[in-house]
């Protein structure tokens, strides 16, 4: 397209030229006519014409084409040439010879354009050269004819006249030359005008550029052409145009290489886009800096009611349109308006429709029937391979479906679960079928390969199906157990003596077993040492005795249980949890109280009554039991195996009911139970008793004791016996003395100093002094003289220095009377940040930024909203539109920023709703 346009333009231009030329010719016509009248026809003229043509063909068609490019010579060169030409005009003989030499390379000029090259036209001298070129004329004649088809046609009419003209021109020129003494070229312009008419008969195209481009010697200027037109209408217009064109004309340089060009283009585009984007900058900046951005510009959410939505509905799809056309049908509407009767009429179905429907149904039925038949046939097929293949297909399809559809997957899982359950129930695959039994009965080894494989497969399937079951059973077993226990508890709670007696029986069995066991004394190791073995024996004896005792007790309790089976129940009603422990105190309290005193000071207080103790026992009893058991197990590990076994027995017994006893004791409240329990305790406490630490009473110093007495004698104080006079009446020195007396030996400061040192040592421990382990790091005694290795000393020094520094850094380093703990409160750690939050780089700034509370309790209501505004405010349902450009004055905005807080910002942001999301891409581009 572009190309075409260009060409058009060129053509236009050419036309203008042409126009000028034609005008010229027109006005020159009278001249010609005159000349024609004057001139006489001559053969020479004709010859001349031929000669011209001949000359054209001279170089051959190929060569002529080249010639056309002649004008591309540098203008200076061309001028020189012209100069030579003009000079040679005078002595044409030589000139004619030489010219071809100069234009040797121009011989390739295209033939068809050669005529245009008027340089040669005016040269009449060619006549004389005739002999040289004459030969060729005939040879190329046919070519010539072809070539001159169009021009020749035109010419044929004018030929005669033209020839005459040429002749005339020649003469005229010479005459002029003679008169003025100027070279012929100066006068050529006029002549050319005439020639122009002839030569410009070529079709206008870029291949035949206008003349001045071709010869470029500027002998004929546009002005020259215009001159004759002076005073004619349209002249001034034309001239103006010419001038404009002159002004505009500039030299065109060779295009740059493509890469370079593109680079420049890109650069330009970049500049342009940069400019484009910078206009967004203030807007983006504003949005970024805004503490909040609001998107609540248009609160109109569109449709609010169902009716509104329905009314705005427009059918879009084919179906909807159809429906709408039916629904909105005038007839239907009318029918609705009046009454239903008309609707019935409208409901009429045409016969064709009915028939079509019927046929359709029949067709479907037949299809269904055929399908059924097919299914039946397939069902009857007994080929196993067929069914197997079918099944395979089905499974494959199902597998795909499972992958695609979660519903199907769920279904599948359920099926699997069901299958598994079924398998667990029926044990279908566990060789329980008749067939399997028979085969097994006959012996597997007898069977052939296939059967064995089948059985194997079946078993495997069973395993597969039951695998899950096993895992679930594991997890649920504990709960089962517990529930069992619960059951047992319930049973026992229902005064089930059987359970208890069973337990006793079990315990008895175990103890017996332990007693019967013959323990071999180890022959080697520490235990084989005589004193150890003695100790062991002693211990064993003790254990056996205990076991016997326990046995007796078991037996007796068993008996009693059996005896007092009937009496139990009423007793439960009467006894309460507390009362239970009355008789136990015989033995148990000693231990329990001892333990208690460890963690409970209240008991050591003389004021404590019995109730407290009781309740405590209630709490502590079970703990004690369990504690004992635990300690037992601990000590047992260290002890000999014999003891271990014995006590394990006990352990088991104690532990077995261990979880339950707590409630057992409370609920049963039977003497036997208690007895058993206490017995256990005693057993357990036997070796524990040595361990029980004396309760460390808080050491009150003298002063405190004094205070204690104070509180004791509070009654006296009430009576107001104490002196009522203000104590300032005391003489100070004597008071000081008194104090000194009162706190004699109480060097508080020194104590505190010591305390502080202790704490410091605790928090910043003193590095251990390095000491050599004898034999280590030494080869002979010689090395010993050297003392400690230097690295050890260095390390010690370093640690010391470190400690000193740490001590110096402490907050209480310079406060003699204060110890500020440097201990870390792990629970409070979460209230501090580990690291600075992201944009902050300095701790100070961060801490300063959080110094002001933001809540409504600490700020006036007018400021709370602004302080707690979210970054983005948006009402639900609002569509965030892309950012729109709008003029923002950055300076003004910043001022506004400073001047006002929230309101302005929100207002300002209201204008550009929807910016935030869209701003980003813009910024990225830039």
């Amino acid at each position: 397209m572009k190309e075409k346009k260009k060409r058009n333009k060129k053509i236009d231009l050419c036309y203008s030229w042409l126009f000028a030329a034609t005008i010229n010719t027109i006005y020159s016509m009278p001249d010609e006519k005159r000349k024609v009248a004057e001139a006489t026809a001559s053969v020479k003229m004709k010859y001349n014409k031929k000669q011209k043509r001949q000359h054209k063909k001279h170089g051959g068609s190929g060569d002529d084409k080249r010639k056309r490019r002649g004008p591309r010579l540098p203008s200076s060169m061309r001028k020189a040439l012209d100069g030579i030409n003009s000079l040679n005009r005078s002595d044409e003989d030589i000139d004619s010879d030489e010219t071809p030499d100069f234009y040797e390379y121009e011989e390739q000029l295209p033939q068809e354009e050669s005529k245009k090259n008027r340089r040669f036209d005016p040269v009449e001298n060619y006549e004389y050269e005739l002999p040289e070129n004459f030969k060729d004329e005939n040879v190329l004649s046919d070519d010539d004819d072809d070539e001159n088809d169009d021009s020749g046609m035109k010419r044929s009419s004018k030929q005669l006249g033209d020839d005459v003209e040429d002749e005339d021109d020649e003469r005229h020129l010479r005459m002029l030359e003679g008169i003025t003494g100027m070279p012929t070229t100066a006068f050529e312009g006029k002549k050319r005008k005439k020639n122009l008419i002839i030569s410009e008969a070529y079709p206008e195209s870029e291949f035949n550029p206008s003349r001045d481009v071709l010869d470029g010697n500027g002998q004929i200027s546009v002005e020259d052409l215009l001159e004759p037109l002076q005073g004619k209408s349209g002249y001034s217009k034309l001239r103006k145009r010419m001038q404009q064109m002159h002004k505009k004309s500039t030299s065109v340089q060779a295009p740059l290489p493509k890469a370079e060009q593109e680079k420049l283009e890109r650069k330009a585009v970049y500049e342009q886009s940069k400019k484009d984007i910078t206009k967004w900058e203030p807007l983006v900046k504003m949005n970024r800096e805004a503490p909040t951005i609001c998107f609540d510009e248009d609160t109109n959410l569109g449709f609010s009611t169902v009716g509104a939505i329905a009314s705005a509905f427009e059918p879009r799809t084919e179906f909807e349109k159809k429906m709408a056309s039916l629904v909105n049908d005038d007839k239907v509407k009318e029918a609705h308006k009046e009454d239903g009767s008309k609707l019935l009429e409208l409901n009429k179905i045409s016969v064709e429709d009915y028939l079509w429907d019927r046929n359709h149904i029949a067709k479907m039925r037949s299809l269904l029937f055929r399908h059924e038949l097919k299914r039946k046939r397939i069902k009857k097929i007994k080929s196993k391979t067929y069914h197997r293949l079918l099944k395979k297909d089905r499974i494959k399809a199902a597998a795909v479906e499972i992958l695609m559809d979660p519903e199907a997957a769920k279904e599948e899982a359920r099926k699997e679960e069901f299958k598994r359950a079924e398998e667990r129930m029926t044990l279908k695959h566990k060789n329980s079928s008749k067939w399997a039994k028979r085969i097994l009965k006959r012996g597997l080894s007898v069977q052939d390969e296939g059967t064995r494989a089948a059985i194997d497969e079946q078993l495997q399937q069973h395993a597969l199906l039951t695998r899950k079951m096993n895992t679930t059973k594991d997890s649920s077993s504990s709960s089962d157990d517990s529930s069992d226990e619960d059951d047992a508890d319930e049973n026992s709670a229902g005064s089930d003596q059987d359970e208890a007696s069973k337990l006793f029986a079990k315990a008895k069995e175990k103890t017996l077993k332990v007693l019967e066991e013959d323990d071999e004394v180890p022959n080697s190791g520490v235990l084989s040492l005589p004193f150890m073995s003695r100790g062991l024996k002693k211990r064993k004896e003790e254990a056996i005795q205990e076991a016997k005792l326990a046995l007796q007790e078991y037996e007796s309790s068993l008996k009693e249980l059996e005896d007092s089976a009937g009496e139990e129940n009423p007793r439960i009603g009467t006894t309460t949890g507390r009362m239970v422990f009355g008789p136990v105190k015989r033995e148990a309290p000693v231990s329990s109280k001892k333990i208690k005193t460890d963690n409970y000071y209240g008991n050591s207080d003389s004021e404590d009554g019995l109730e407290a103790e009781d309740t405590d026992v209630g709490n502590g009893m079970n703990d004690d039991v369990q504690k004992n058991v635990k300690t037992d197990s601990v000590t047992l590990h260290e002890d000999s195996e014999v003891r271990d076994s014995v006590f394990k027995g006990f352990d088991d017994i104690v532990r077995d009911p261990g979880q339950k006893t707590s409630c057992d004791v409370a609920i049963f409240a039977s003497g036997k139970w208690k007895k058993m329990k206490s017995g256990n305790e005693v057993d357990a406490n036997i070796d524990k008793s040595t361990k029980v630490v004396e309760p460390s009473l808080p050491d009150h110093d003298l002063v405190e004791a004094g205070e204690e007495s104070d509180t004791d004698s509070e009654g006296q104080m009430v009576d107001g016996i104490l002196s009522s006079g203000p104590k300032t009446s005391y003489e100070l020195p004597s008071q000081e003395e008194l104090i000194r007396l009162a706190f004699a030996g109480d060097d508080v400061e020194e104590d505190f100093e010591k305390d502080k040192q202790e704490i410091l040592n605790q928090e910043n421990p003193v590095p251990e002094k390095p000491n050599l382990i004898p034999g280590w790091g030494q080869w002979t005694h010689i090395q010993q003289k050297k003392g400690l290795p230097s690295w050890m000393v260095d390390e010690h020094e370093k640690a010391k220095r470190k400690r000193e520094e740490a001590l110096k850094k402490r907050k209480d380093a310079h406060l003699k009377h204060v110890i500020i703990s440097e201990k870390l409160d792990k629970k409070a750690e979460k209230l501090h940040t580990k690291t600075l939050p992201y944009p902050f780089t300095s701790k100070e700034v961060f801490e300063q930024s959080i110094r002001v509370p933001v809540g409504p309790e600490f700020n006036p209501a007018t400021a709370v909203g602004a302080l707690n505004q979210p970054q983005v405010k948006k009402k639900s349902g609002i569509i965030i539109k892309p950012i729109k450009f709008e003029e923002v004055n950055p300076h003004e905005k910043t001022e506004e920023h400073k001047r006002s807080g929230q309101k302005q910002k929100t207002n300002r942001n209201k204008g550009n709703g929807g910016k935030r999301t869209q701003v980003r891409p813009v910024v990225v581009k830039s």
Partner: protein
Amino acid sequence: MGAKEENDAHGNILPPIEQEIVDELDTKVKKYLRGESANLEVLQDKKLKGQLAVREQLYGKSAKAAAKIEKWLMPSEGGYLEAEGVEKTWRIKQEAIAREVDILSSRNQYDIVLPELGPYTLDFTPSGRYMAAAGRKGHLAVVDMKNMNLIKEIQVRETVRDVVFLHNELFFAAAQKKYPYIYNRDGTELHCLKEHGAVLKLQFLRNHFLLASINKFGQLRYQDVTTGEMIGNFRTGLGRTDVMQVNPFNGVVALGHSGGTVTMWKPTMAAPLVKMLCNQGPVSALAFHPNGHLMATSGKERKIKIWDLRKYEVVQTLPGHAKTLDFSQKGLLAVGTGSFVQILGDFSGSQNYTRYMGHSMAKGYQVGKVSFRPYEDVLGIGHSMGWSSILIPGSGEPNFDSWVANPFETSKQRREKEVRSLLDKLPPETIMLDPTKIGAVRSARNKEKPTKQEIDDDMQTAAEAIKGITMKNKTKGRNKPSKKAKKKQELIAKAKRPFLEQQLKEEESLAKKKQKLSEQGELPSSLQRFARKKTT
């Protein structure tokens, strides 16, 4: 007047009154700004700078608004006694005051004489509306101070050592002979806090809903009264004491001990945060200024000291003994000794307490407890013969904030406030010496021990760093890849070594500890005679 004249002397453009207002506002704004803003100029991050600048402006606006509100909505100013000529404020008797004040105020001067159930201790609700009084011999009473209405009194027939209101007047806790109990307003016993034991002194931390107690054995306990959970149980190890006071600023509990030391505790740490030697003799009383920066202690060596808790330094040492101390809302310090109550005031603003007022009870009355009534210029005195109330002008905060404490609270308001305060309940770990540091960066020095994972990571990074090193080529013939690899391995091992060594050391120490423990644990009796006798 002095201030006015000064402003005039400055010769500002504004008329004097307005200038004064501006100045006043400025000081108030400063208060609400809560410190200087950070220097934003040093910040490199422009965005952050901008954000902070906006923030700062908001803060400024808020502070200004708050200051204005304070200026215009809290018009009452506290007065105080001013002496003329040779008159001394401490010579002004209560009778003289009674003659001058209005009837309502003069009603606050009274003595309730209850000689039988004697010495009484008092506690006011934070609004000052209600008072709980507890007589040593089992008398508990809740009194509405506004209309002097006795809401409930009960006789528990036990020693009552202390009484304290919980979060509102509906509940109060009394430290009785063996345990502290919680009663409601109707005198119904709600809880018996057995775990506390025989408590000598009770304190309630309002923001944390913690009931703190110190018992006979010097055990400090914290119990959450909302959940009943025991938050902390610490042995002070410093003997019996009945000197305990909560710092209202940060919730730290301070205990005064017989060694003259004061220890400060928080419920999540077993060791005291601060232990300071305040007095030479046993500490007999302790009080905190409402702003939390001042602490007054008195020792048996007859010295009352005022401490600046920001620097842990003595600000002032006053002679005299105090059985009980209390700071008023406006910063007056009441000192009770024998039957004499002295009020010290700090009117110069330089924490220089001077005598302000004095009041001596009838002879034989032993003052056991002094307590300023909030939002009133009233001092309650619990003594051996009942309790008394005297007027101390300038002691109470004249403007109350109904969001904080409302003396005219209706029951509905009370209910709402209860819910709100429960929602705003602070977790116990927020009690710390400087609660403004919450949310700040943890100090690097307090860094906990690196976890095993961290150590491993460090080791890995060290090893990785070595792996990245390219080894130099040796001379021809010596440059063997195997040797290079070996060298690298060695380097890696070397890099890992310190970490491993440290680990080993730790393990060793742990093992040692364990061994020690096991040594302490018993030998079987048969081997006990071979155990080395411990040198004591």
